[in-house]
């Protein structure tokens, strides 16, 4: 569920634990829960990934569709984000209940991808001003067990890594009319370089310390958190304070440093998992929701 109600005693227990660098589930403050990542789970998408972080369960599907480039960027394609907070996660999301949260997350995703280095948008252009690829990145929130942003950003990165865009050729005849032709070989496709795609590290201020990858219970004890989007080289591309409480500048710097440090490790392990999975090739037994 998106939030839980905790008694005062429970809160005190969690806060004190964090101060001792010992969290309820036995982790230290900078430890992530174990993350399960699997790509290519939805076969009719261009790329997909499922990420399970504790009880948080995210499914991302990327669909490449052809469209026209934006006027201000005639030789680039672009990404569109949509986050669906499914009623599966909690009955509160039924109907339009999840829309606000969905929009908030989508906007955050737009912001962290809003810089040139994250994805090479030029490679998505087919013919300037006329045709380009639009990548629809659709996030489906299936279960919610805290630390949504981190899980979603990991899933998005994994899905983009998995994305394969068909190669097309633009044919032009004497009259200047253009036609799109598909390559005959289905193996011939464009892949995105996700080296610079950042991940979000959310740092939750609990008491005087901050923790990464907070559970729902821990989130309930936190007054404010800081979202830091970090690339694999440790560059911070975006930062945002969320939550109803306030943070002093000093702790923000402290948290940013932690974010960078944790983020780099996160990237490295994600990268290795993705490559390992890829090396298994198409014969890999897919697990999906059956495992």
């Amino acid at each position: 569920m998106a939030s839980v109600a905790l008694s005062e005693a429970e809160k005190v227990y969690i806060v004190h634990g964090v101060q001792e660098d010992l969290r309820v589930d036995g982790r230290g403050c900078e430890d992530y829960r174990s993350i399960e990542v699997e790509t290519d789970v939805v076969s009719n998408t261009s790329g997909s990934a499922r990420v399970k972080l504790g009880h948080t369960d995210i499914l991302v599907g990327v669909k490449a569709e052809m469209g026209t480039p934006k006027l201000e960027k005639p030789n680039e394609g672009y990404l569109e984000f949509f986050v669906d907070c499914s009623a599966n996660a909690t009955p509160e999301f039924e109907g339009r209940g999840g829309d606000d949260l969905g929009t908030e997350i989508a906007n955050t995703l737009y912001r962290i991808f809003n810089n040139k280095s994250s994805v090479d948008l030029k490679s998505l252009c087919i013919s300037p001003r006329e045709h380009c690829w639009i990548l629809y990145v659709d996030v489906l929130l299936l279960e919610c067990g805290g630390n949504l942003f981190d899980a979603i950003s990991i899933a998005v990165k994994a899905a983009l890594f998995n994305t394969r865009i068909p190669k097309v050729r633009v044919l032009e005849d004497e009259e200047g009319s253009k036609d799109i032709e598909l390559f005959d070989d289905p193996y011939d496709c464009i892949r995105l370089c996700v080296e610079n795609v950042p991940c979000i590290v959310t740092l939750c201020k609990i008491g005087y310390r901050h923790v990464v990858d907070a559970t729902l219970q821990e989130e309930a004890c936190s007054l404010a958190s800081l979202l830091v989007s970090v690339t694999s080289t440790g560059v911070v591309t975006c930062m945002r304070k969320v939550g109803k409480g306030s943070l002093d500048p000093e702790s923000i710097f402290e948290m940013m440093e932690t974010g960078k440090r944790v983020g780099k490790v996160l990237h490295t392990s994600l990268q290795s998992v993705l490559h390992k999975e890829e090396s298994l090739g198409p014969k890999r037994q897919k697990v999906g929701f059956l495992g």
Partner: protein
Amino acid sequence: MAGLDLLSDQGYRVDGRRAGELRKIQARMGVFAQADGSAYIEQGNTKALAVVYGPHEIRGSRARALPDRALVNCQYSSATFSTGERKRRPHGDRKSCEMGLQLRQTFEAAILTQLHPRSQIDIYVQVLQADGGTYAACVNAATLAVLDAGIPMRDFVCACSAGFVDGTALADLSHVEEAAGGPQLALALLPASGQIALLEMDARLHEDHLERVLEAAARAARDVHTLLDHVVRQHVCEASLLLGD
């Protein structure tokens, strides 16, 4: 050249099945920990998740509570990436609402609602990938989820679609077969009694053929039942093993 031959002279369908054969069905119960019941099903390339919350207090307006039975609340949602062409919104469109209503009718007929008066049972289904027969997959997934939640039912609800091509009834239509525009029938069956929980048909079909198509759908639904029953038994076995330790 005209479209595909949906049924070859040798009796094979586009994907290699024979007329009465189901697609490969795989299912799992208890996918999520937080919900009261959950299940996942794959029927070929159609993949659906179902989650059940309840029975619990009526959410929202108390006036909706029913004095003699539980309120069954269903929402059908289909992921934006589930279809060939991307969907703009996952739910709230006319088709999703209609699906939700159909599911509700189906499960009101199967769940022993009178055991939980003044309460509510939520069934949420989420289609992850659509390749024909989404209604059937949703019903089958929801049945497993309701069972997983331990909510008493009269019987399994097993659903399957059927179509009609060149004088032959085809069971469990895939998207290509549905898109061909022939008549299609969706059937939800309570297999033990043979009662029909929901029957719906689109497109014209001559009365003379109805019986055969219905028969094909019912036979397929019974096959589905055998498979689901197996899944449930397996799940219970595993669960009891875990509990036993």
